[in-house]
C-alpha cells in the first residue's frame, strides 16, 4: 500500500515540476520574443563548431585553468549523474529498486562507481566555490566593489551551491544506507552480486548501528530528497543565474560571427541617407500600394530605450548570463572606477525582462505600461557613456554574451531620438558635419601635412 502511495506521490511530483518548468519556460520564451527580429541562422556548420568548442568544450573557461577544471567537474557531474536520474525516475514510477542492475550486470557497479566519484568531486568543488566567495573573497563577487552584486545575486549563488552539496550528500548516503540494507539481507534491497560502492562505502559505518526500520526510513528520505531536490532545482534554475546550464548552448550557437569590431548597420537609416544625398528617390506610389515596404516591420524608433527595442539575441544573452563578472573584471572603465559594469548591463536587462514577465502574468497575459524603461530606470547614461567600445567584455564572456551591442543601441536612442549627447560630442558631430573631421580644421588644410615633403 505504501509502495503504491509512493508511486502516486512520485507521479504527482513529476507532474507538478513539469508544469512549473513549462510555465516558466513559456514565460521566458515569450519575453525573449519581445525583442526585434535578427537572423542568426546563417552558416550553421560554423555555428555548430563554435558551440562544440565554446559551449560543450568550454574553451573560453580555460583562460583560468584552475577554475575551469573545477567548473568542468560540476559540468561532467551534472551530465553524467543524470544517467542515474533516469533509473531513479523509472524506479519511482514503477515502484522498483535499481531497475537497471539486473540488465547491465558488471557495467552497473562500474557506472555507479563513476557517478559516486563525480558526486564526491562535485561536492568538493562546491565547497571550494563557496570558499572562493566567502573566505577568499574573490573581488568579482564582492558587493563593496560591484553594486550589481546585491543581496539576491549573492544569495542565488549560495543557494545553488548549497543545493548541489545537499543533492550529492543525499545521493551518496542513499547508496550507503541502501548497501547496508542489502548486506543485512533485506528482501527489497537485494541485487545479486552487488558490492559496496567506491565512495559511499565510507559513509556505511554511519548507518551500521541503526535498526532496519530506521535504515529503511533514512533510505527513503535520502532517495526522495535526492529526486525532489533535482526537481526543485530544475524549477529554481529558471529563476536563477544558473539558467546558463541550458541557455549556454543555444546562446553560443547564435553567436555573432562577424569580426568583433563590426557594428550592426541600420538599414532604415541607410534609406533616409540615400534620399538626403539624392542617391535614391523616396518611395511614393511607385510601388503598388498593396505591397508593403520591406522594412514595414521595423519599429519607428532609432536605437533602444527598452528591451523591446533590442534584438531577441540581446535578450537571450541576458538570460544566459551567470554573473561571473569576467567581463567587468576586464572592462577598462570598471577597472578605473567608472560606473559602467558590463555584467550590470546584462543583469539589468534580465531584471527588466523578469519585471515585464511578472507584470504580464499579473495582468492576464497583457503587459501594462509601468512607466519604466531599461534606459533611465535600470541603466544610467553615465554607464553607457563610460564605454570605450574596446570589446574586452565580449572577448572575455565564456558564453559569448555581447554587452557592447546593447550599449551601442542605448547610445543610438539617446543621440538620435533625443539629441542628448555630452556637449563635447555635439561639438565633434558638428565638426564632422561641417569640416568632415572630428576637429575644427578646414577640409582645405587636410593635405597640408605633405607640404614639407614635396
Amino acid at each position, binding site marked *: 500500500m505504501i509502495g503504491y502511495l509512493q508511486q502516486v506521490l512520485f507521479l504527482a511530483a513529476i507532474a507538478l515540476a513539469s508544469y512549473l518548468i513549462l510555465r516558466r519556460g513559456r514565460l521566458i520564451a515569450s519575453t525573449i520574443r519581445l525583442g526585434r527580429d535578427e537572423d542568426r541562422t546563417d552558416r550553421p556548420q560554423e555555428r555548430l563548431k563554435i558551440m562544440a568548442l565554446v559551449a560543450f568544450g568550454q574553451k573560453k573557461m580555460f583562460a583560468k585553468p584552475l577554475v575551469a577544471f573545477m567548473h568542468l567537474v560540476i559540468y561532467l557531474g551534472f551530465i553524467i549523474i543524470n544517467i542515474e536520474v533516469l533509473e531513479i525516475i523509472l524506479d519511482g514510477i514503477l515502484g522498483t529498486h535499481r531497475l537497471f542492475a539486473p540488465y547491465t550486470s558488471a557495467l552497473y557497479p562500474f557506472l555507479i562507481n563513476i557517478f559516486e566519484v563525480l558526486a564526491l568531486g562535485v561536492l568538493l568543488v562546491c565547497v571550494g566555490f563557496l570558499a572562493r566567495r566567502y573566505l577568499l573573497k574573490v573581488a568579482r563577487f564582492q558587493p563593496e566593489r560591484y553594486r550589481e552584486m546585491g543581496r539576491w545575486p549573492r544569495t542565488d549563488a549560495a543557494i545553488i551551491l548549497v543545493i548541489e552539496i545537499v543533492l550529492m550528500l543525499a545521493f551518496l548516503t542513499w547508496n550507503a544506507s541502501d548497501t547496508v540494507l542489502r548486506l543485512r539481507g533485506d528482501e527489497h534491497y537485494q541485487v545479486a552480486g552487488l558490492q559496496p560502492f567506491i565512495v559511499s562505502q565510507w559513509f556505511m559505518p554511519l548507518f551500521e548501528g541503526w535498526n532496519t526500520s530506521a535504515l529503511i526510513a533514512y533510505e527513503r528520505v535520502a532517495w526522495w530528497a535526492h529526486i525532489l531536490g533535482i526537481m526543485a532545482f530544475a524549477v529554481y534554475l529558471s529563476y536563477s543565474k544558473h539558467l546558463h546550464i541550458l541557455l549556454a548552448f543555444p546562446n553560443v550557437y547564435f553567436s555573432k560571427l562577424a569580426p568583433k569590431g563590426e557594428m550592426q548597420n541600420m538599414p532604415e537609416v541607410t534609406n533616409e541617407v540615400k534620399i538626403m*544625398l539624392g542617391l535614391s528617390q523616396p518611395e511614393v506610389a511607385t510601388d503598388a500600394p498593396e505591397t508593403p515596404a520591406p522594412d514595414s516591420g521595423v519599429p519607428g524608433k532609432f536605437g533602444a530605450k527598452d528591451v523591446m527595442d533590442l534584438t531577441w539575441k540581446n535578450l537571450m544573452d541576458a538570460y544566459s548570463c551567470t554573473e561571473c563578472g569576467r567581463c567587468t573584471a576586464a572592462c*577598462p572603465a570598471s577597472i*578605473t572606477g567608472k560606473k559602467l559594469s558590463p555584467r550590470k548591463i546584462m543583469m539589468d536587462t534580465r531584471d527588466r525582462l523578469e519585471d515585464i514577465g511578472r507584470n504580464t502574468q499579473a495582468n492576464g497575459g497583457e503587459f501594462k505600461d509601468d512607466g519604466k524603461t531599461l534606459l533611465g530606470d535600470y541603466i544610467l547614461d553615465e554607464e553607457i557613456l563610460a564605454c*570605450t567600445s574596446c570589446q574586452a567584455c565580449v*572577448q572575455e564572456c565564456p558564453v559569448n554574451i555581447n554587452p557592447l551591442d546593447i550599449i551601442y543601441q542605448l547610445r*543610438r536612442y539617446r543621440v538620435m531620438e533625443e539629441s542628448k549627447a555630452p556637449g563635447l560630442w555635439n561639438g565633434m558631430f558638428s565638426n564632422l*558635419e561641417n569640416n568632415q573631421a572630428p576637429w575644427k*580644421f578646414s577640409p582645405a588644410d587636410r593635405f597640408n601635412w605633405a607640404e614639407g*615633403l614635396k
Partner: protein
Amino acid sequence: MTTETTPCQVPTMAELAARGETPDVLFWVGCAGSFDDRYKRVTIAFVKILNAVGIKFAVLGTEESCTGDPARRAGNEFLFQMQATMNIQVLDGYGIKKIVTACPHCFNTLKNEYPALGGNYEVVHHSTFLQSLINEGRIKPQDGQPFKGRRITFHDSCYLGRANKIYEAPRAILEALDADLVEMKRSRSQGLCCGAGGGQYFKEPEPGKKDINIERIEEALGTGAQAIAVACPFCMTMMTDGVKNKEREADVKVYDIAEFVAQAQGL
C-alpha cells in the same frame, strides 16, 4: 642613403586619374594622420617607406574625409552613414580596389562596416602591410640596427587586436628590427584599452578613480621598456600623455611601428 636627395612623392588620386594611371594601393591617411601634429610624423614616415620601397600609391588629399567612426560609436548613425556614403562615392569614383591605412579605427570601419553600405575594398592595416614588405624582402633589416636589443613593449590597439585579431603583425615587425620585445601582462586578446575608443577621445571621461591611460601607462612602464610601440593614432596620444603624466618623457619614447621601420631604414 639616396632618399635624402630624392624628393618624396605624394601623388593624389586626382593627379593619377588625370594622367590615366591607377595606383596599386590607396593610402588612407585619416583625420589624425592629416591634422594631429604628432601623428602627421607617422604619416610622413609611412610615406617615406612607400617611396623608398617603390610602392605605386596615392592619397585622396583634400578629397578624403572622416570615415564616420567616432560618430557611429557615439550613437550618431545618421552622421556616420552620411560620411560613409560620401566616402564610398569618392572611392568608387576612382575605382579603388585596395586601401592601406595606419589608423585601426579607419581600418575597421572601411573593412568591416562599409560593405553593408555598398563599399567593398581590400583593406590592409599598415602593420600587416609593413610585415609583408619585410617578409618579401623589400624592406631589409640592415646591420647596425638602432633598435637592436632595445627593450620595447607593444600596446595592442583594441580595433586592431580584439576587433580584427591582428596581434602578430606589429610584433613581427619589431622582432625583425632585433628589438627586445617585452610583453605587458595584459596583452593581445587581453590587452587593456588606452581609453580613447568609443568616442571617449572626444569628450571628458566619466567620473571615476583614475584615467584609463594612466592605468595602462603604469603597466607599460612596469615592463622597464625604453620605448612603447603603438599602431594607432589615438593610442599614440593616450600613451604619450601617460608618459608625460609620469614625467618619463626623457627616457621613455612612444613611437608608431611605421616610425620604428623608417628609423631603422635611416629614412
